[in-house]
Every structure is written in structure tokens, then in C-alpha cells.
């Protein structure tokens, strides 16, 4: 799965937590989850849980703290998926 595919999948994970769905149209690797998508920071926990189940990975606390932008998220997800192989 390349970064583009992960980004498309990640949008589906972010969808239920994004109040203004239109903001998801312009998502790129630099998009900040809290500042740009206006996601409630408490919901980052839920996004991580959903991503874990979607990609069948485990995201530890240290990695989770790095997930600030969409690009960061793709980095962590890619890393964990590779570690699984």
C-alpha cells in the first residue's frame, strides 16, 4: 500500500470525527488534524483506535504522539505495517 492509498483510506478514518466534511476534500500530507480539520483533540485517541483496527496494527503511545499531521499519520501507519511483515 503506497502513501497515496493510505491517505485515501485515512480520510475514511477521519471522516466521522470531522465536523465540517468539506475540509476533507483538501487533505494533503501537510494537513494538521486539530488545527486544519478542527478535530477535537480528545478524538485523536479514537482515530488511533480506528486506525489500529483498519490496518491491523498496534500504535504505541510514543508513536501516537507523533501523529499531528496527515503525513505524520502515514509515516506511523507505514512503519507499523512494515514491522508486521
Amino acid at each position, binding site marked *: 500500500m503506497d502513501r497515496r492509498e493510505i491517505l485515501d483510506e485515512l480520510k475514511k478514518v477521519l471522516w*466521522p470525527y*470531522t465536523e465540517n466534511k468539506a475540509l476533507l476534500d483538501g487533505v494533503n500530507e501537510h494537513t494538521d488534524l486539530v488545527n486544519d480539520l478542527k478535530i*477535537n483533540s*480528545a478524538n485523536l*485517541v479514537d482515530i488511533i483506535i480506528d486506525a489500529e483496527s483498519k490496518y491491523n496494527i498496534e500504535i504505541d503511545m510514543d508513536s501516537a504522539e507523533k501523529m499531528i499531521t496527515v503525513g505524520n499519520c502515514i509515516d506511523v501507519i507505514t512503519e507499523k505495517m512494515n514491522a508486521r511483515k
Partner: protein
Amino acid sequence: MGRRVVITGLGVVSPNGIGIPAFLDAIRQGISGIRYMPEFERLNFNCHVTGMPHFDMDELRAYLSDVTLNGLKAVGIGYGVKAALDAWTDSGSPVDTDEPRWETGCVFGSSVGEPEVVKRVITRVDAGEARKLGSRVVEQMMNSGVTAYISGRLALGNRVITNSAACATGTQAILMGYDYIKQGQAKRMLVGSTEHVDSYIFGTFDSMRVLARKFNHLPEKASRPMSATACGFVPGSGAGAMILEDLDFALERKANIYAELAGGATNSGGQRRGGTMTAPGSQGIIKCIADALADACVAPGSIDLVCGHLTATAADTLEIRNWARALDRHGDDLPLINSLKSMIGHCLSAAGSIESVAAVLQIVHGFVHPNINLEDPDPEILEVAAPEKLPVTMIEKEINTVAKANFGFGDVNTCLIFSKYNHNG
């Protein structure tokens, strides 16, 4: 005479009707909201019927954002949000605001964090998967969850409190809101209560053998307050809400006034002299009713209608005797008496708020709803009350003053006096 408190908005999620128009129609016609629950039979309960609103959480789409609604599993919070926001809109105020409403607070009652929600937590934690619980569990497990959702949606900035007093919760919430306005601490209070009786709450009452078990195949007949064949109560679920306002505040914003909350009282019998954890003591009840009348400056002879607690247990007879003694009115001099529980069962924490909404509607629309299933009144009750005081069909009649009481575990009592709004007091 100080500040007056009026009711300017109503909302309800009841087993026999969701929203005021449907509920009003149901209580006029005597429509039962009690239904058979196959699940309760499967669980080997004695009682297989309950009062359950036909409510779908999806109905909240118009009330909460998709993100908020997405993780909301607590049904009782859902009932409360629906009833509260309906009452708010009914009072003629806009929902959306960026500024906190400092003059408006909320007292909303709830009995427990919903066991069904707690179960998910217990299952995850016991499996060593606490990290998968997510961010939305605490706000739904805390007893103040319903109040937090309501006050957050409406930006209520005054006192925001969750009360809990078993079956007296609803009337007590209303009285607390009344007190804050009366004392000048708030101009407006959103008050009410909610209860969702899932199988775990139901099971705890079923094990006390206090539920109706003889009408499992006739659900609509199962809730029989004051009846000779009453054999226990039928638990119910739902929420009731009302907007209380300082009269001057309501007049200034030209609000529609339904009725006045003239006064009330809450006390405890202290679990002495007949009062116990589970049974109300007569002395406390009689004092509570007398204190409510005194607070409202209403003479016992002015009460047109008693909306009782009257659950369909052996305590009904004692309750009627207590009303007669408290009002010093007997036989055919007693006010008309009815029990909404005959139609919706006993909604526990939500009983007081749903029944108070019904009390206000009877004043506004000039009627007394029927006691359904009272074709065979208990002979001991008839020794105290003339049969025509326990109407079995709807009566169209001007109702000026209603006494509404609820009594809860812990020997806690609350009595409210509602009256028709008259500008000259």
C-alpha cells in the same frame, strides 16, 4: 411576595408518545405505552413488560452534530437531550449561540450511569484492552453525562447540576431549578430528568419481587395503580423537561407562559416511624405536602387534582390515606386523583419530570387524564376516596391547581404545586 416562577417550555420522551403533541393526545385518550419484551422472558425475569419509548438515536441528528452523535451509545442521554432541546425550542429561544448563557442553568436528574455502557467498559478492561475504550466513554458513564450534553449544546452558563434521589429525582430537579430562580441566582433553568431501564436495571427491581408479573401476556393491562388486582409496578423509560423562568424575565422576552410553579417542598422521613430504605414514612409525606402548600400559599381546599406517585404496589392505599390526611379532605371531598403510571409505568428517575409535564398539560388544556386499568379499584382505597374521584375516563374540566408528588428509595419525598398562570397573582 417576591419572584414568581413560570413554565415556558415543555418536552417529553414518553413510552406512549414522543414530543408534546403525541404525548398530549396519548394521555387524553388513555393510550398505554407498555409493551412485551421477549428479551425479559429469555432472561427469566418475573415481569416481561415495560414502558419503552419508540425512540431511535438517529432522531437526534437534528439536535447534535454527527461527530457528537457518532459515539453516543447511552440511550438515557439521548432521551434527555431530545426532551430538553424540545422544551428549549418550545420556549421560543434559539438553540445556537457563541456566548455562554450566564443567566440560564440546568438541573437534570439521572439515576445511574447506564449499565449497558458500563458493561462495555468492564468487558474491555477485564480483557486487558482498556486502551481500546476510546475518548467517549467517561462522558457517558458519568451520572452528570446527560446534564453535560444538554448544557453544552445550549451553552448554559449558570448552575449546571445533576441530581439523584431515586423516584423523587424528577420532581426534585424541578424544585431545585425553582429554588435557584426564586432566590435570584438564575433567571431561567432547564429542568428535568431521564431514565433508561435496560435489562440490568430491570433485573435489580425484578429480583426485589416488586414488579407486575401477572399480566405478561396483556402488557397494556399490566400497570394498574389503585386497582384491587395490582400486583407490582411496571418499570418505564423516558425523559421529561421544562423551562422555568423568572416571571419578569419571561414577560420581558414575551415568552408564552404555560403555567406557574407556585411552590414545592422536598424532605425525607429520615427512615424512621414507618419510613425505611424502600418504604416512605407517612409522617414525612404528610409534612412534605403541607410544606409545599405553605410554600405556594395555596389552601388544601384549592387543589383540583392530585397527580400521585401511585405505582401499583401495596403502598397505593397508604398514599391515598396520606393525601387525605395532608389535605384534610376525605371521601367525596377529595380532589380528583390520577396516576400517569397506569399508561407509561414507573419511569423511576424520569417519573417526576414526565408526570409533571402531564400535570402542566392538564392545567393548560383543561382536562384530567384517565386512570386506565382501574375497572376494579382497591376496596381499601374506596374507604378513603369516593370512586368518582378516581376517574377512568378523561374529564374535560378547568384545572387551576395541581399537587404533584413523588416518593423515592431512601425515604425521600418531593411535592410540587402547579397552578394556572394569572398575571395578577
